[in-house]
């Protein structure tokens, strides 16, 4: 009888150890204590960004614990972050390079989501308004050996070549730091006083509107609401595009209109212009819901501009008009048209 009890106890201890190993890998706090970067840059410039981190791991008796430190940056897709960003880390836990997270790596405690998707679900567009952004995820080249309750001050130096797509841009860049064991979880019962759940296992820092000037492309403003937006933001004349008009941002001459129309001029790749400026079903922007001031029109540019075989529409300029075409609203509620270039990232 004593022997049986002894075996049972042994298994019990093993189970307990496994459970504890699984549960107690916890960080007491992870915080971006400062982030410095210039407020603006020119297209193609390599911008230095410095993150200072305040980290304290805590995981009971299971010392030391090895985990990769992670940094993710939300930036426009057109910037091609995986080709244009490098980063190094230094400070309390040695120096090294940040390397890109292999594609498809699963974020722990996220029900099997990849890091990119998990970040997207948790932080969305971080206050930006156009859905053409992506999270670029990096991790330390080696695992960091953490010792319980050890206060660590570290830094990450990022060098980001901005606006590789040649577009002047206004965007709120967002930075998230985390570690490869805990993912983007929260545990209110074990947070450090003064830090809270959003600086326990991960922490986010979003910049104010960062401005990139110069470049030959069209201005992309992720920060400020636009009178019109185009979905998909990157498209060709053989895509199906939706132009949405938001009449609530400023006092336009179209205020209160039940129906508005699109008045557009396409420029073909061979330099010809085709104008479609009629007030018919073809150009009618449907208000939905009624009285909301949100109007949209979905169309196939190739057919809309009646492009001939072999002709492609390279760009278009457009206005939003009232029912008889006498009132035209243009870019920023001015007399200049909105512009859009048909091209891929």
């Amino acid at each position: 009888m004593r022997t049986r009890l002894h075996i049972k106890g042994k298994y019990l201890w093993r189970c307990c150890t496994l459970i504890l190993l699984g549960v107690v890998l916890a960080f007491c706090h992870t915080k971006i204590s400062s982030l410095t970067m210039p407020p603006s840059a020119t297209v193609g410039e390599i911008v230095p960004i410095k993150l200072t981190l305040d980290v304290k791991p805590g995981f009971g008796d299971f010392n030391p614990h090895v985990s990769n430190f992670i940094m993710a940056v939300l930036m426009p897709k057109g910037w091609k972050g995986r080709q244009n960003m490098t980063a190094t880390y230094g400070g309390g836990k040695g120096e090294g390079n940040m390397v890109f997270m292999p594609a498809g790596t699963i974020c722990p405690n996220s029900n099997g989501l990849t890091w990119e998707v998990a970040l997207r679900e948790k932080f969305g567009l971080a206050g930006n308004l156009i859905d053409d952004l992506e999270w670029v995820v990096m991790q330390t080249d080696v695992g960091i050996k953490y010792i319980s309750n050890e206060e660590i001050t570290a830094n990450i130096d990022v060098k980001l070549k901005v606006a590789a797509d040649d577009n002047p841009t206004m965007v709120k860049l967002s930075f998230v730091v985390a570690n490869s064991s805990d993912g983007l979880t929260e545990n209110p019962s074990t947070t450090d006083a003064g830090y809270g759940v959003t600086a326990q296992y991960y922490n986010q820092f979003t910049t104010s509107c960062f401005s990139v000037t110069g470049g030959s492309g069209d201005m992309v403003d992720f920060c400020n609401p636009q009178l019109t937006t185009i979905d998909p933001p990157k498209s060709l004349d053989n895509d199906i595009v939706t132009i949405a008009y938001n009449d609530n941002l400023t006092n336009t001459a179209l205020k209160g209109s039940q129906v508005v129309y699109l008045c557009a001029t396409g420029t073909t790749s061979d330099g010809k212009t085709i104008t479609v400026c009629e007030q018919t079903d073809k150009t009618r922007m449907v208000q939905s819901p009624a009285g909301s001031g949100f109007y949209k029109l979905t169309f196939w540019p190739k057919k809309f501009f009646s492009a001939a075989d072999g002709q492609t529409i390279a760009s278009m300029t457009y206005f939003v008009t009232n029912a008889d075409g006498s009132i035209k609203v243009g870019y920023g509620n001015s007399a200049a048209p909105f512009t859009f270039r048909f091209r891929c990232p």
Partner: protein
Amino acid sequence: MDNFFKIGHAYLLIGLITLGLASCKVDRVLPSAESVKDISGSWKVIKASRNGTDLIPLIDYSQFRVKFDAKGAYTLVNPLPFVASKDGKYAFDDPNYPFKITFTANGGTPVSTAFNYPVSGGARQLTLTFSPGCTLNNYVYTLVKE
């Protein structure tokens, strides 16, 4: 032991053996040939999405048809963005077990896409995923035969 050979037990034994033999009989079935996937006919779009956004309330698909003939040609009626932008030829990678369908527009280059041909509500559906514009923009059409 003597009792075992009593007549009643013998019947029981024979019965059991017969049952046993019957149950072990191998039922040989000739493998039937997988049917050739015949999609000839006129197909219309019943579902359409762009990057996950439902396009049905946004754009009029009611006039758009894809007509496949039995000789490997297709025609587009009232065209909208599709796998191919002009009429041409279509082919399967394997006529019996197709995984891919290839559209070759007249004078164009072949474009292949996965061939999904499920039965839904008693009717065959054809689901095609493609990018007629930028490759990052994905469109999914579900078509049914008229």
